[in-house]
Each structure stands twice: as structure tokens, then as C-alpha cells.
């Protein structure tokens, strides 16, 4: 199989690049080992579009973060991505020097972050009544936002797909070899040859880089654990609350999510295991104490789930983006740890530009720049909703009682481009199983819908592809 451009990895970065590249006349393919897009770090993070004051001026992190954050409002409208610019607060407690916030403010201004300002007690308490008593002031960044990372990644992927990019899911890259023109990418599904290779493999990007370059990279997986709270706790804070780095490391954030839950995390722990997305007893039990440094009265009984993601930390500490000097046609997009989600739109544009230049690509005339997400009946008026149900009665059948997701939405999630093929795929697209009962009620029903619509046997329905089957046989068959 021959392609102009092969992208390895369908996380938010790979998909953003694919979407930007699909503006060009080119034959693009994306290789992803999982059964769906958005299965790596892109599905397990804080979901913040950072304002951009964190990274040191002059770094790629600073540059792409600020650019990405500027691009997001328009992109969210264009691609129908749930996005809310709620602003963030970095809070300072009375034992921390004032200079820390001032340095952060200055750094932000150097990076080009607009509208930063320091808030004192009174205004701060008015904005956030649940801040810890020791909090005395905060850096306010009104351009910080929250986003749905699944929808963001899926939106990029769907739009790329509609514009001709081909996604090979369930395709694991084993090795890459230099070929006469370009590279041969060996996978468990055969060899893919490409003139340009884009390495967006997350925590594994060092592995692929090191196959083609003498100048080695080294990526460490740094685990971050979270607890997610019921929607009844969703208003506990109304901004993203960060802590200044302190005694307990980089600090734990407390934030509402775009869907109305409350998220607390992450921890930070280096692990040798690049598959180590497990949560730990120590990690989970430390979160409440860490968070209480900035936010009090967290309703710990309202936790509905916990999860962990792996940051791809490269030894240099910065993003590595560009053509590898001793491997022409091989573009690294490596070490994309936080603020990778925020930077993805800008990285996408940059890397697409690079590849287009290498291959002298021409822009398409018929690029479709917009995408409409899955219909969200809960946002319709009563009449609109009933119109929809009259046309498609499946929208009148609620399948997930916690999130009030209808069968119609699930059917749409399955049948759209790069549609869901597993319970998790459905969950990320329409939130069935994402609520307080965590799929206890709806999983058997979603399984039935998947089996009918895909179609497939009930025994073949999985949680997340591969060998994650849910039921193992029929009664009395064992």
C-alpha cells in the first residue's frame, strides 16, 4: 500500500495533523493500533485548553499553546466541539511568596497571553466560595477553557475522513525502514509505504524516531490519576483551579468539565510501563488531600469513576516537532505532553504545512471545513425534539438513564464516519455509560444496539476492541 503521507497515531495530535493535511491534494493514511481514535493520552487528561502562561518563553510549548488557544474558539464552532472558555485561576496560599504569581503573570505576558490579571481576596472569594481558607490571591486567565478531548479528537478525525484521509484502525506499527523513496512501515496488517512519515505515536514516538535516526530520543511515561465526580458536584467550582507548584509537586487541579462533572487530578509519577494506565491505591487516596490545598468541601462520596493517563515526557522537556535532520521525510511530533491538547490545533497546522512543503502539495478546491457533531436532543426545544422523534422514533427511546442518551444518538454514533464499534467508542461519542451508574444499566442495551447496527454477534461486542469481549458464551454452554 503506497501513500504520500503516513501518520502514525490517531490521538488528538495525529488527528489534528490529518485534518489539516486533508486540505491538500494528497493521499494520506493514519495508522492506529487501537480500534478507535482517541485511545491514548488524548482520552485521559485534564481537558483544559491552557491560556499559555506556564511554559517558558521561547519554547515550542509556549508558542503552540498560545496559538492553539487562540484557534480553539473558531475551531470549536467549525467542528462542533463542546468548548467553554470558563477561565482559570492559579491560586496562591498564604505561605507562598507573592513573587510566584507575579513571575507567572510576567511569563504569560511574554508568551502573549491576553487579559491576565491578579485577583485579591475579595474578588476571588466572590468568584469561588469553595476556595481553601489559606488561599490569598490568584492569577486569573480568562482565555483558559475546558473542552471535550474525545469530541475534539473525533471531530478532527471525522473531518479528515470526510476529506479523504484513510484511517487504518487495529493496525500496530512494528518497525520502520528507509526505502528508495520514503519509508516502509511494517505493521501487523502488512507494509505501508509512504513518502513522508509523521510520527505522532505518543509515548512510543521515541521508539519510531530511534529506528530512523542516530540522534536518540527518550520518552518517559508519567502517570496522572484522576477522580471524576457526579454532575451534582459539577458546580463546586466555576473556573479551573490550579495550584502553584509547592511541597506536593506540581499541584492538583479542580475543574468543571464541559459536560458538567467535576474533575480532580492529576498525580504525577514516572513509570517504566508505557501501558501503565492503571490507577493506584496511593494515587487515588492522595487526591483528596492534595486538592484540599486549594478547594475545600469536596464531596468525596460523589466520585463516580477514576482513571489515569500517561504523559509523554521527553528528556529535553520541550515538544519535538519537525523533520528529523538525519532522516529526510520523517517528521517527529514527539514529547507532546501537556499542553499538548491545547497545542494540537496549532501543531496540526504547522506539521501539515511542513509536509505540504516537502511534497509541494496543492490545496484542494473542495475541502469541507465544517462538521456537525452527533445531534444532542437535550439541547433542542420540546417541539424540535418531538419533530425529530416523529421522523426517527429511536430518539424517543432513552437508553442511558444517567446521561439521558437516546437510542437515536447511539445509532448515529455507530453509523457516522469512523463510527463507534465498541461500548467505549459509544461512550466517548454520546456519553452512554459515562454517568453515575457507569454503564450498569445501559451496557446490555448498548451491546444489543451495536450487535444489531454494525451488525455483529453479541459475543463479538467488546468494551474497547481486541480481546475485551464482554460476554463469553450463552447460558449452559460452558
Amino acid at each position, binding site marked *: 500500500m503506497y501513500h504520500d503521507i503516513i501518520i502514525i497515531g490517531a490521538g488528538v495530535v495525529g488527528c489534528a495533523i490529518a485534518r489539516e493535511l486533508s486540505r491538500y491534494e494528497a493521499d494520506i493514511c493514519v495508522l492506529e493500533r487501537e480500534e478507535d481514535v482517541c485511545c491514548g493520552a488524548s482520552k485521559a487528561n485534564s481537558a483544559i485548553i491552557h491560556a499559555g502562561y506556564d511554559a517558558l518563553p521561547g519554547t515550542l510549548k509556549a508558542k503552540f499553546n498560545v496559538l492553539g488557544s487562540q484557534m480553539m474558539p473558531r475551531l470549536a464552532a467549525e467542528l462542533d466541539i463542546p468548548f467553554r472558555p470558563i477561565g482559570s485561576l492559579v491560586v496562591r496560599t498564604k505561605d507562598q511568596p507573592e513573587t510566584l504569581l507575579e513571575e507567572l503573570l510576567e511569563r504569560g505576558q511574554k508568551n502573549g497571553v491576553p487579559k491576565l490579571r491578579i485577583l485579591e481576596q475579595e474578588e476571588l472569594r466572590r468568584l469561588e466560595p469553595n476556595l481553601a481558607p489559606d488561599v490569598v490571591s490568584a492569577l486569573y486567565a480568562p482565555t483558559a477553557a475546558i473542552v471535550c478531548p474525545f469530541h475534539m479528537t473525533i471531530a478532527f478525525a471525522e473531518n479528515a475522513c470526510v476529506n479523504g484521509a484513510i484511517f487504518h484502525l487495529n493496525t500496530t506499527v512494528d518497525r520502520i525502514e528507509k526505502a528508495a523513496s520514503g519509508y516502509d512501515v511494517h505493521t501487523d496488517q502488512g507494509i505501508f509505504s509512504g513518502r513522508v512519515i509523521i510520527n505522532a505515536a505518543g509515548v512510543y514516538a521515541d521508539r519510531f524516531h530511534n529506528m530512523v535516526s542516530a540522534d536518540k530520543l527518550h520518552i518517559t511515561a508519567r502517570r496522572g490519576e484522576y*477522580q*471524576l465526580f457526579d454532575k*451534582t458536584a459539577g458546580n463546586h467550582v466555576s473556573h479551573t483551579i490550579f495550584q502553584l507548584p509547592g511541597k506536593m509537586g506540581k499541584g492538583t487541579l479542580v475543574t468543571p468539565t464541559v459536560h458538567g462533572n467535576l474533575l480532580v487530578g492529576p498525580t504525577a509519577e514516572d513509570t517504566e510501563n508505557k*501501558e501503565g*494506565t*492503571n*490507577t*493506584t*491505591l496511593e*494515587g*487515588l*487516596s492522595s487526591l483528596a488531600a492534595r486538592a484540599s490545598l486549594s478547594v475545600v468541601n469536596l464531596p468525596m462520596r460523589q*466520585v*463516580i*469513576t*477514576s*482513571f489515569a493517563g500517561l504523559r509523554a515526557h521527553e528528556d529535553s522537556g520541550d515538544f519535538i516537532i519537525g523533520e528529523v535532520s538525519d532522516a529526510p521525510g520523517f517528521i517527529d511530533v514527539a514529547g507532546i505532553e501537556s499542553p499538548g491538547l491545547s497545542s494540537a490545533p496549532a501543531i496540526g497546522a504547522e506539521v501539515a504545512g511542513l509536509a505540504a512543503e516537502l511534497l509541494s502539495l496543492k490545496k484542494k478546491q473542495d475541502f469541507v471545513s465544517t462538521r456537525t457533531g452527533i445531534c444532542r436532543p437535550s439541547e433542542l426545544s*420540546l417541539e424540535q*425534539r*418531538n419533530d425529530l*422523534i*416523529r421522523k426517527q*422514533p*429511536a430518539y*424517543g*427511546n*432513552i437508553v442511558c*438513564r*444517567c446521561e*439521558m442518551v437516546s437510542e437515536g444518538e447511539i445509532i448515529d454514533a455507530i453509523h457516522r464516519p469512523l463510527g463507534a464499534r465498541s461500548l467505549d467508542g459509544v461512550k466517548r461519542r454520546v456519553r452512554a455509560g459515562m454517568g*453515575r*451508574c*457507569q*454503564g*450498569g*444499566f445501559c*451496557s*446490555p442495551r448498548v451491546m*444489543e444496539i451495536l450487535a444489531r447496527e454494525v451488525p455483529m454477534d*453479541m*459475543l463479538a461486542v*467488546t*468494551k*474497547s476492541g*481486541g*480481546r*475485551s*469481549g*464482554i*460476554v*463469553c*458464551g*450463552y*447460558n*449452559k*454452554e*460452558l
Partner: protein
Amino acid sequence: MENYDLIVIGGGPAGLAAAAAARENGVENILVLERDKEPGGILNQCIHNGFGLHTFQEELTGPEYAARFIEKVEKLDIPYLLNTMVMDITEDKIVTAMNREKGMFQLSAKAIILAMGCRERSRGALNIPGYRPAGIFSAGTAQRLVNMEGYMPGKEVVILGSGDIGLIMARRLTLEGAKVKVVAELMPYSGGLKRNIVQCLNDFDIPLKLSHTVVDIDGKDRVKSVTIAEVDADGKPIPGTEESYCCDTLLLSCGLIPENELSKNAGVALNPVTSGPIVNDALETSVEGIFACGNVLHVHDLVDYVTEEASNAGRHAAAYILKGAATDTRRISITPADGVRYTVPSCIRPGHMEETLTVRFRVGAIYKNSSIVTCFDGEPVNRRRRPVMAPGEMESIVLERKTLEKYPDLKEITIRIE
């Protein structure tokens, strides 16, 4: 908007019995709303024996027990809508519901009975660390898969929690050919009924490990193993006591949570101990004309009690609809004290109460040879000895109207264990 005298939310045993009682007490215009494809609630998946010993003096299966009430409701000509999800209830008793045929619609009612049942506590709520593979089920979900859909969730099973559903499923899965390796229970006692421990675990040589919990789940795609450890008196795992079990399935039977999201929308006050509404002797919630019964009010282990409670709710709702709200404003509160976790109801209207009132409650630990002491304004007035009381089994006392009439100034009744 269509108007009803009474709308019942949920067509499980509670909703059906409540609707029937309301009709028998003179309410004409009743509607039952049920989200599932058939009435009967959770009973439809409980195909084991053991229902109805109190109500019918015979041992029925869950579906058989439900069938008796479905028949009754049909005989009484009470309409119900199936496949209909109630999405909202307001304080002024407007019910918003949705189904395929009618779309989203609103109804109004003079009175509402909440009978939505409960849901199971999920892995997330239990904060169990580890990976998040396939093969982790709440016991009730597994029960539905096995008993209603005909699928086996796995072959080698570990069960966390000794609640009744977990115990029943241990037996069920064993009979279906799976190997249940162990049941781990966080508490030093089982949360289930004694008879279930004997009939579902002991009879099949399934070990029950008390004071144990799951500390790790391994497996990226599907559960590969589950590690359990002993816990100390505070429920914290004791390092060094970890034991790993190879298995492909973990069932969770760690408690039920009354499903009160709708009640909250209507402004109904909840008891943080039960997660169910706070009710008076008429099973009326803090919102006038909204009543509650069954598992939505507090978790029951025996459906017979659900039926009894629901009939009371139906009768009281009928009185409210036909005779109007209570006029006498005097109240006596019922307060749980030493050893008692909660009571239902939590207050009495002495001017309106019936001849007798059953107060149900649960104890917080195992008590042997202890007494249930009832106090009126601090003075013990009754003491009943019980050989054994356990958190898994509901207890009750009966208060008589004629007794209370002798205490015209009574403010508070407390119940404690001694």
C-alpha cells in the same frame, strides 16, 4: 396537558402495589409510567425462589411474584405506559416523560408516588484501583445478562461484596458452569440475608472472606486477575495480606443507592443515610402530595415489605387526593439513636396517623442478645429483646395510635439498641 389524580413513577413491585391500593381506596384517574419494556421492575431478573413468603405464604420466583401484581393492576383497569422514561418532575407536580410514540410530553397530577427503585454502586464509586478492562460487572447487570438475555459474563469469577444480589449470582453462575473463586466482603459481617449465605455460598463451598477488599485489578483488555487484601478496623488494606486470584470476571455487589435524581428535581428533601426521601407516617415527602415507597425510599431485602409499604403509600395518596392535605400541624419526630442508622418514617402526624404504624430501620453492626429500646422524649417506654440483629436485615417496631394519644405533649421518639 393531560391531568391525572395520581401518577406513579416506576412499575416495579412498589409502583404496582401503590397504584392498586390507590384504586382500591377510590382514586379514579391513575397512570403508571415505566421505562422498561415490561412491568415488574427488578423482579423480572430475579428468577430464583424466595419471594412472597410473607405476602402469599408461598415461595414464588421474582417474575411470578410480579405477575400477581401485574394481573391485579390490569384487573383494576389501571393504565400504564411502558418504554416510557420519566425525565423530570417539578414541585408543582408536572411530570415530563418521553417514549417513541408520543415523543416528549408533560402531564400534571394532584399527587405523585415515587417508586423508581435503586441502582447499584459502581466500581468508580468504590474507588477500586487498577486497570479498567472488560469483565467488571455490577452483580445486577450480570444478573440481567444471564437471566434475561441468556449470556454468560465470564468463566472464572471473583465477587466483591456479600450483598444479596452477589450471593444469588454466586450460586447462579456456579449452576451455569462458571467457577466462583471467592466472595470478598469489606465489612466484618455479610451485608446479605443469612439464608442466602447458606444456600448460595456454603452449599457450593464458595469461600467468603470477611474484612477483605479488592486492591488491584490487572488486565488491559479483559480482567486477568484480581488482588484482594485484608482490611483493618478502618477499612484500610493491610500491607502483606494481598492474595491474587486469576479470573476473567469481577462482580460487584457493594450496595444499592436509591435512585432519587428525579426527586431532587422536584425539591424533595433526602436523608443522607438512606439517600432516599425523608417521609412522614403517610410516606409523604417534604413536598406535599409527593409520596415514596419501595427501594427508592430505602433499600429493602424482602419484596414483601416493599409491597406492604407501597400499599400504604397508595392508600395515603388516595386520602390526600380525596380528602385534601393534612390539617393538624402537630408533629412527633422519630430519631435513630445508638446502633440505629435510620428510621422510615422520620416523623409522625399524631392527628392523622392510622391505628398502627410500622417504623422500619436498620442497625449499624451485628448485635447479639440485645434489645430495641423505644423512648418517648428520652423515657424508655418499650424494650424488645432480639437474639440477633444484623445490618443486612431490616428491623421494625410498631407504634399504636392509642398509645401516642396518652402523650399529648410528646415531641420526639427515639429508637436505640441496648
